[in-house]
């Protein structure tokens, strides 16, 4: 695909939707319905400046730390549990149990345990975002190819080298699928962790706007969240293309034949 075409695909639908939105909201007097140009203006005045440093950046920082920990811990624990049979049998039912608990209900608990601070908010993000990566990694390790495994064994590739050159790359497709889910869960939990007992952050600010009937500002906050999600997706795509280029190449070839 040519770059021009790619840009057209990327911006095409959003532009159409904004035009449609503009047309439908034209002349509307409903206080709760935002209009495109006003919203863009509000977006600028509300979020660029002091708020950006006091609310947006700290939120992003907590999100980043939470996600990095969730992904790192998920991979390490997943490799460990996946490659130790007794550990896997022992832990698997419990992991499913913990995964089934909706993370927002942990917020009050973590508040009591950790207190109302950044650590608590990061902990909330980790507690929800770790599961897709962890469980996918466990599943992936279990399903590594038996012939490749035999190749490793016959060449004496064991221990850390086995993880580094064989297991980790083999499981990367599953890990990335887990990471994709973790990103959106992380974003949701970032907002939720700030809605309870907090005095700053994106989630807090949006709730604050809503309580004060600052409706355009509230909408603009939602747009900021959407943009963050988009940013995450783009970063993900960039990384995935680099890490899994072999996987996509392999898939393309097996689909062709």
């Amino acid at each position, binding site marked *: 695909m040519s770059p021009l075409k790619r840009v057209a695909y990327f911006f095409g639908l959003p532009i159409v939707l904004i035009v449609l939105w503009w047309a439908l909201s034209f002349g509307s007097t409903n206080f709760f319905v935002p209009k495109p140009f006003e919203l863009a203006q509000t977006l600028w005045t509300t979020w660029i400046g002091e708020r950006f440093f006091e609310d947006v950046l700290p939120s992003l920082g907590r999100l980043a730390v939470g996600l990095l920990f969730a992904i790192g811990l998920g991979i390490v624990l997943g490799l460990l549990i996946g490659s130790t049979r007794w550990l896997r049998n022992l832990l698997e039912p419990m992991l499913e149990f913990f995964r089934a608990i909706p993370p927002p209900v942990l917020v009050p608990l973590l508040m009591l345990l950790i207190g109302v601070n950044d650590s608590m908010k990061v902990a909330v993000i980790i507690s929800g975002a770790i599961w897709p990566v962890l469980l996918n990694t466990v599943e992936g390790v279990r399903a590594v190819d038996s012939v*490749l495994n035999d*190749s490793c064994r*016959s*060449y*004496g590739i064991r221990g850390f080298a086995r993880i580094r*050159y064989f297991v980790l*790359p083999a499981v990367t497709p599953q890990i990335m699928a887990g990471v994709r889910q973790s990103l959106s869960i992380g974003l949701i939990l970032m907002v939720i962790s700030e809605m309870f007992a907090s005095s700053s952050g994106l989630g807090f600010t949006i709730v604050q706007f809503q309580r004060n009937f600052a409706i355009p500002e509230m909408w603009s906050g939602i747009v900021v969240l959407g943009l963050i999600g988009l940013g995450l997706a783009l970063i993900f795509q960039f990384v995935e293309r680099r890490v899994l280029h*072999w996987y996509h190449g*392999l898939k393309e*070839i097996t689909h062709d034949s």
Partner: protein
Amino acid sequence: MTVSDTTVNRPVKTVPMLSVRGLQKIYKVPGGEVEAVRDLTFDLAEGELVCLVGPSGSGKTTLLKCISGLMEQTSGTVELAGSKVTGPPKSMAVVFQEYGRSLFPWMTVRGNVELPLKNQKVPKAERTALVDAALKSVGLDHVPKSYPWQLSGGMQQRVAIARAVAYRPQVLLMDEPFAAVDAQTRADLEDLIRTIWKQLGVTILFVTHDIDESVYLGERVIVLSSSPTVVQEDLKIDLPAERDQLNTRALPRFMELRSHVYAEIQRAKLGPVTEQITAQRKAARK
């Protein structure tokens, strides 16, 4: 001269490179047991190239897995240069039947060949030289940066062979390595194996179900019965050491040997040689 006169009956003086004694493997499966290999005994002297033929399902892969220490046998022993094999030995390399699944798709051709050496902490310069030489010997020195999945089946199997060659094993086990490549490539690969064997002086056990291939390649052919498996025949191949696809295959002796192996395999398919026949043979050898 009849063919059976050439049946090997060599007294073993020195310690054989590879020694299989009374090997039996019973798989435990849900609702019972499958006896894949019943009782296999044979030796490989150092530097020998031996082919193992047997009908499909006769336990060839099972046998190789036991020899290479990847699987535990039910009874019997495998010895490598006099010491018992209990896990994958360092001085052995295996080329698997499923070439598509034995190379790492996330590594380049070069990376794949290099990995076992890297793992053995071979110094960088020596490693590079070994990998280059191995890739050259299989005729793949022009694609080191490609990924395995970008190559044809025959080329992938050559990468797997290069990896084994670069590793410099004492014993090389190959499990029907050419079963899934076209006839022309196969002929080339067969010649490649003989060249490598002569160059490296490595001991090779080559498993195949192709009778012509076994006679063309081997210095000796071991014929297995169908499952539960025993050694049906151990045949010396007295063809000239220099072999080539056109002339060797046209030799009358080649025809004789292949017909003989063919007849043995047909016999093997009818059923396993009973203990009685085995016993008779043992008596006859004395």
